[in-house]
């Protein structure tokens, strides 16, 4: 009972301290509230993902559906396109009856040429910016896709009515929706990236919350000393302090909940288009909310009690125990070293087993926590070695020598997040460079248009239509036909399996294989690692009907795959490349078409003009760059999410630093007034504040870069990439952190100017 009374006294003291008491409580509540809001956002991610998945599943076209005779059906075929870097996905729909099933969000059957758009795609098409997109799927827009058919408000999606589908090229279904989950599972690399991302973003939040609890702790310690003077024992003062902290934590939970509500309404519109979701989907998982409600106050109380161990609250005042005791490095190193040890399995490659994931996450957490542990030692031992400089420098360095803990607490959050971000960016970059596509030759052609439809348009049609697109400077088609085995005949070599034959000019065949020399009439055999080479002189039956006989010329040269091609990655079957002359005038029906296209980089949106032209020949033709961007769309989204999160963190930590500096200035207002009375220049005091923030920040960033680089090496080893550092990212994140330092200093200056009026002496 007495313990509860002590806690209650603490709560009363925290709210009964007059204006300054309320200000302190508000600071703690806002500080914790910012952290709680971030945690609630994180706790909403599963719900958001689930809502997205549910809606994506509901509109999915099943691969195989058992059809009930007599039930209405619809033919559907997916179209994957893009506008600039934004994905645009659609479905061609051919209803087979008036009652054919409709996808979610679509209310009427589509006649051929009818187009239904998502609101975001409708807006885009209506804008002046999207000329290259106009007419890609026709002009007859008859409606808008409802929210139930979209994953988010920014999704670019369409349904296009058609009468050109058949059961061979499209899927016949009686209902939309995939019950077994249509969303692609995360591969091991992406899983690793997601795990690293979560650790990187949430760890600084935890550090931030523990920092916020200490706002105004000097005042509180003095209050506790007053309690000791009237007879409170050490245990009572600790419980009273816990009560004060609980009041702040409760306020923080309320502020956090309010901030979360505000964020939830806006963040859906702020995230990148590919990751969009609806504001109503931002609902935290109840179990995680319960954890936050319990763990945040518990953590804050633990932090407070731990901080109280550093001071001796006596009846006549507060003595800091730590001022003379130098920090030791030994035990601080144990944590990151154990973390690195846990990460060592990564050096042997990725493993998706649960045990391995737990080890990786634990290792990452320990290494990043190590940054927060080593930084106080690093700052303390460095500032004790710093020499004299100007007055501002001396004031700052001496202040840090006396007590660097406060400054370090603020900086450690940034250091941890920068270390993590460098690691993640390094990993993302490594995944890109590890990709074989990056080695592809783009000197002649930059993009391909791929048609895999049953009814392939002739090469001449493709070349004619694509050549007319704005920004296209060159087009060359490669026709694919399949070569089948020939019934065995005496005295003749016999082929065993089907293999593709690519027919094209020497120039375009060079995109597929390393050709030393090539003239029309030549044929080549491309044999990837592990594939069996067809013997020159073998006979084949060509085409879908397998009715045209053709013999691989005896002169066919065996060549290696061109860098960056599918064949170069191994595992593919043998292929035959032939120039038109080598077919001996045979007229074969194309079974696939790959059109290589050269684009003028000076023409804006040339790739989109090309996509629109390609859609006129075949709406499902797929355009893709020969050397795709270093990252895939999902990787890009993860990186964007991390950047958004890091910016939010930097703002959060900048705000906490500002609060810390403000609090310190208020604590020292009399001293500042005395310095002003001596005639101390404002720039001297401003410089002192800047150095006090910048020195720990510089050290924190240095530690972050080293730690982040070590993590990068481990993660790069895991994905099999050669070691490389992303200096641009290191520079950008460090620069952003430096901007936070400058903004924090600038933000504290008005208060500093106000406090350094010599008239402040009057308060003595």
């Amino acid at each position, binding site marked *: 009972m007495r313990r509860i009374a002590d806690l209650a006294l603490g709560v009363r003291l925290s709210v009964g301290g007059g204006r300054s008491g309320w200000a302190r409580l508000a600071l703690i509540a806002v500080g914790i509230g910012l952290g709680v809001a971030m945690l609630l956002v994180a706790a909403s991610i599963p719900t958001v993902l689930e809502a997205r998945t549910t809606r994506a599943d509901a509109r999915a076209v099943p691969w195989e559906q058992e059809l009930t005779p007599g039930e209405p059906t619809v033919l559907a075929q997916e179209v994957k396109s893009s506008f600039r870097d934004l994905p645009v996905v659609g479905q061609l729909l051919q209803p087979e009856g008036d009652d054919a099933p409709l996808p979610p969000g679509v209310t009427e059957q589509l006649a051929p040429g009818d187009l239904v758009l998502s609101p975001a795609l409708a807006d885009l098409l209506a804008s002046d910016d999207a000329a290259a997109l106009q007419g890609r799927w026709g002009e007859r827009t008859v409606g808008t896709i409802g929210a139930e058919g979209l994953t988010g408000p920014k999704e670019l999606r369409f349904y296009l009515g058609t009468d050109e589908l058949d059961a061979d090229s499209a899927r016949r279904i009686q209902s939309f929706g995939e019950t077994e989950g249509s969303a692609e599972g995360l591969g091991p690399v992406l899983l690793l990236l997601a795990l690293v991302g979560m650790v990187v973003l949430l760890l600084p939040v935890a550090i931030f919350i523990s920092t916020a609890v200490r706002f105004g702790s000097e005042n509180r310690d003095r209050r506790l000393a007053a309690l000791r003077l009237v007879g409170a024992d050490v245990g009572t003062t600790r419980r009273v302090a816990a009560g004060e902290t609980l009041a702040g934590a409760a306020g923080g939970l309320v502020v956090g909940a309010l901030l979360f509500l505000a964020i939830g309404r806006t963040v859906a519109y702020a995230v990148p288009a590919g990751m969009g979701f609806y504001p109503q989907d931002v609902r935290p998982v109840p179990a995680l909310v319960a954890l936050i409600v319990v763990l945040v106050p518990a953590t804050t109380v633990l932090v407070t009690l731990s901080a109280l161990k550093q001071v001796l609250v006596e009846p006549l005042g507060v003595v800091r125990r730590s001022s003379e005791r130098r920090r030791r490095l030994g035990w601080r190193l144990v944590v990151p070293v154990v973390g690195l040890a846990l990460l060592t399995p990564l050096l042997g490659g990725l493993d998706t087993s649960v045990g391995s994931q737990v080890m990786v996450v634990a290792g990452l957490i320990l290494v990043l926590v190590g940054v927060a542990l080593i930084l106080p030692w690093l700052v303390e031992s460095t500032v004790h070695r710093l020499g*004299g400089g100007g*007055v501002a420098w*001396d*004031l700052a360095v*001496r*202040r840090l*020598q*006396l007590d660097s803990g406060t400054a370090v607490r603020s900086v450690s959050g940034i250091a941890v997040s920068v270390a993590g971000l460098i690691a993640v960016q390094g990993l993302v970059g490594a995944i890109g460079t590890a990709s074989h596509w990056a080695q592809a030759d783009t000197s002649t052609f930059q993009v391909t248009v791929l048609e895999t439809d049953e009814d392939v348009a002739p090469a001449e049609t493709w070349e004619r239509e694509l050549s007319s697109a704005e920004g296209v400077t060159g087009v060359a088609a490669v026709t694919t036909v399949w070569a089948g085995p020939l019934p065995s005949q005496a005295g003749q070599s016999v082929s065993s399996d089907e293999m593709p034959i690519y027919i094209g000019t020497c120039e375009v065949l060079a995109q597929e294989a390393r050709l030393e020399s090539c003239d029309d009439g030549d044929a080549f055999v491309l044999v990837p690692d592990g594939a069996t080479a067809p013997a020159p002189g073998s006979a084949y039956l060509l085409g879908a009907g397998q009715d045209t006989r053709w013999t691989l010329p005896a002169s066919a040269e065996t060549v290696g795959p061109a860098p960056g091609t599918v064949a170069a990655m191994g595992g593919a079957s043998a292929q035959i490349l032939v120039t038109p002359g080598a077919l001996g005038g045979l007229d074969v029906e194309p079974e696939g078409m790959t059109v290589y296209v050269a684009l003028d980089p000076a023409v804006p949106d040339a790739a989109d003009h090309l996509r629109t032209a390609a859609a006129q020949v075949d709406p499902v033709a797929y355009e893709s760059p020969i050397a795709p961007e270093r990252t895939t769309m999902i990787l890009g989204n993860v990186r964007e999410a991390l950047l958004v999160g890091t910016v939010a963190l930097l703002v959060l930590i900048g705000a906490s630093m500002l609060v810390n500096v403000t609090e310190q200035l208020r604590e020292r207002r*009399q*001293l500042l007034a*005395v*310095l*002003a*009375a*001596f*005639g*101390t*220049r404002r720039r*001297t005091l401003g410089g002192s504040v800047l150095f006090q923030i910048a020195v720990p920040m510089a050290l924190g960033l240095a530690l972050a870069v080293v730690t982040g680089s070590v993590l990068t090496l481990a993660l790069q080893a895991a994905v099999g990439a050669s070691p490389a550092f992303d200096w641009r990212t290191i520079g950008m994140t460090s620069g952003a952190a430096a901007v936070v330092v400058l903004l924090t200093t600038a933000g504290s200056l008005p208060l500093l100017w106000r406090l350094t009026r*010599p*008239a402040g*002496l*009057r308060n*003595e």
Partner: protein
Amino acid sequence: MPTEPLLTAEDLHLSFGPTTALESASVQVHAGEILALMGPSGSGKSTLLHCLAGILTPDTGRVTYAGRDLTALHDDERSALRRSEFGFVFQFGQLVPELSCLENVALPLRLGGASRRAALRSAEAWLERLEVSDVAHKRPGQASGGQGQRVAVARALVTRPKVVFADEPTGALDSLNGERVMQLFVAAARDTGAAVVLVTHEPRVAAYSDHEAVVRDGRVRSQEYVR
């Protein structure tokens, strides 16, 4: 006594909101003189000292230092004046806690542009003079109250100011320490020829002055020579 006073306050009025702090207050001090401002708590004596030092600007009236009207100077000019010509001693020393005692004393010189080495050399001499060399490399928190106050006096005098403003310089000390601080302070001030404006409510401290002014309810009731 020289005919022209070094520092003069004429008919000062100053209010903080509805509270009148100074009302028609006038005092003057000549070079090398020690003026004690006496009076009970809240009488306005510290406010008068702050006006004389250019820290506060009166609502009306004039403060003249060496023929210059302080009330007409820009804030930067008053700051420069305080840096170069004035010194200050406060009740609790108000030393910068992070700096060593030696660095605290050197601080005004460094603010005035002196090199670090020269400032520390002068500071050492002043600490020796005020008999606190033994705490030179300690932080203020590690020195006793009396030692800290002597360090504060050294800091006030290290620039050889023309005027030293001392606000209850012994208010936080026991009588023995207070006596010793005043003896050293007054001796050092007289050696440098500095005028001293001393705020105190203790007759024992005021006894070190050349003349006293009694402040009551914001008015200077009298200014008379005690020596």
